[in-house]
């Protein structure tokens, strides 16, 4: 992580810092929801080695 981001975090006000924390948590939830299970094929069957 670059110094610029760290610097920005350190310069945020307390309220903004808390908002940022919750936004990151929300974003992580969003990212997790974007993961696609690639072990399942489009029609729902297991993809085999064939």
């Amino acid at each position: 992580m670059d110094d610029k981001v760290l610097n920005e975090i350190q310069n945020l006000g307390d309220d903004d810092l808390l908002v940022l924390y919750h936004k990151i948590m929300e974003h992580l939830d969003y990212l997790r929801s974007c993961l696609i299970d690639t072990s399942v094929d489009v029609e729902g069957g297991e993809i085999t080695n064939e």
Partner: protein
Amino acid sequence: MSSLDSCTILKSMEIDHNHIDSFVMETEEGTKRTKEKFYHEAAENRNSYVNKQQDLFDQYLGSVRNEITRRYSKLMPVDKTSEYEGELEEVGKLLFFIKLNSDISDTFKTDLDFIISSIKEETSLEELNSCIQRFLDAFKEMGLSLTLDDFKYTMFTEKYMSSFLENSDSNHMHDVFDKIFFMCPDIKLQLKMNLMFITQKYAKELAEYVSTRKLKLFQENGITENDLVSRYTSLRFDIGNKIAMDEYYNTQLFLSGKKKIADFLENAPARVKNYDMFAITGIYASLDEEEKSSYNSAMMGLYVTLNELKKYYHYEFMIKDLVEKYKGKDSAKTSYLNKKKEIEKEEKNRQGIYKEYLKANGIGFLAKKSDDKINQSMLKMNEQVRKLDSLYQELQDLEISYQLSSISESASIYDLFIASLKSFSYLEKSFSSDDFSEKTLEENINDLFRFLYNPNNAFLREINIFADYNVTDILADKYKLLKLNVTSDMISAETIDSTMESVSFINLIQNIERSNTSIHRIDVICKMHEIIGEAPDDSVI
């Protein structure tokens, strides 16, 4: 201070949303197999991007968390408990000096009254022996070593104490007690009365000891009788204020969950409801700045007054009783003095019975041993002590009225309470009800002293005992004049607790805002606390 809107992390989030949303996941071209393959590859590409971003945002989260932990440590007020301990100890010491300087009896000042009063019918043998030992130790501290001669109140106390002074071992004393008990079932009472008698016998020495001790302690602590109470009240007021406004304690109230910070924020329904309750218009927000300022100042006074009033209700039964007794003080004074004379006479008779007993044992000039006379004198002694016990109880009942005889008709409620301190037996009886059973007699009396010498007491000293008006009405009227919505119904003995809850709510806000913290700062600390859990962990900083 940088702005959240221009923060790189927020921008990265936006980029993520755009990038993820714009991923092409499907193709119209090719066979079913080709389409599946396309989707599979697109999903893997997108997952790879998402995984990379997850790692990045996990790092961001860690950094933000570390910054929150660092700030929590910085924002969290310092615990000043050890700083206050010294001052609280000093307050306790000054209260002890006030007792030493007051008109209470010397036996009260030296704790001998507490020792004697703790001997009751239900007292166990171990407790009884411990009381006797404490009594002996207290006298030793005064430079008086009690001997068997002091315990010849009856032939039974002499027998018991002769063994006790030789060997106070519990098993040994159990045997001694059993043997005496058959001849004298009142042995506990007789020992108790013996101790009382000793305090009368050495009253002069006791007075000298108390006076010398007081002088020494006052000199050592640079205290004079004139400035004692003012020093106590001023120090107690200061430390009370410091503790009420202490940032650490007030923050802990919220961190521990005893209070909910959400209720205390500006415009929170609970806060609005409590503020509106005392606003004369019914809506605090409708008051202008000047009115709000008067409201807040009057509310601070109301908090102090209601605390005083609540304690007053606690002790009101005593005031009612003391006023009744005051009315009969003149006749009680004569009765008290006559009772004293009667007791003196009966104590002499008791001594006579003891001499008869010695004679029947063949002790003394021309004395001849006689078992019959021994038994007779023992029976007579048991009866005589019971008679004396009744007389002493009657004397104690009259004592408070006798003490009230020095009070003038212009006395305040406070003066009446102070007079009640002169009678230990009256206090003992007053605090024997269930309302006071959670604390020991010593603690209850200490509470009464603390109440009487509370620096915030006002109406106690101002209201005359015979005034034909109601304290609750006077106080409600006073705060109405100060433009607060306070009615007698709101502060009666039955309702004061719920009203106090609202007043305390506002008082806590006022104390926080007067201190070096604020409701907003506590809110931030609470939110940070929720994130980082318990105490900040230095290792992550």
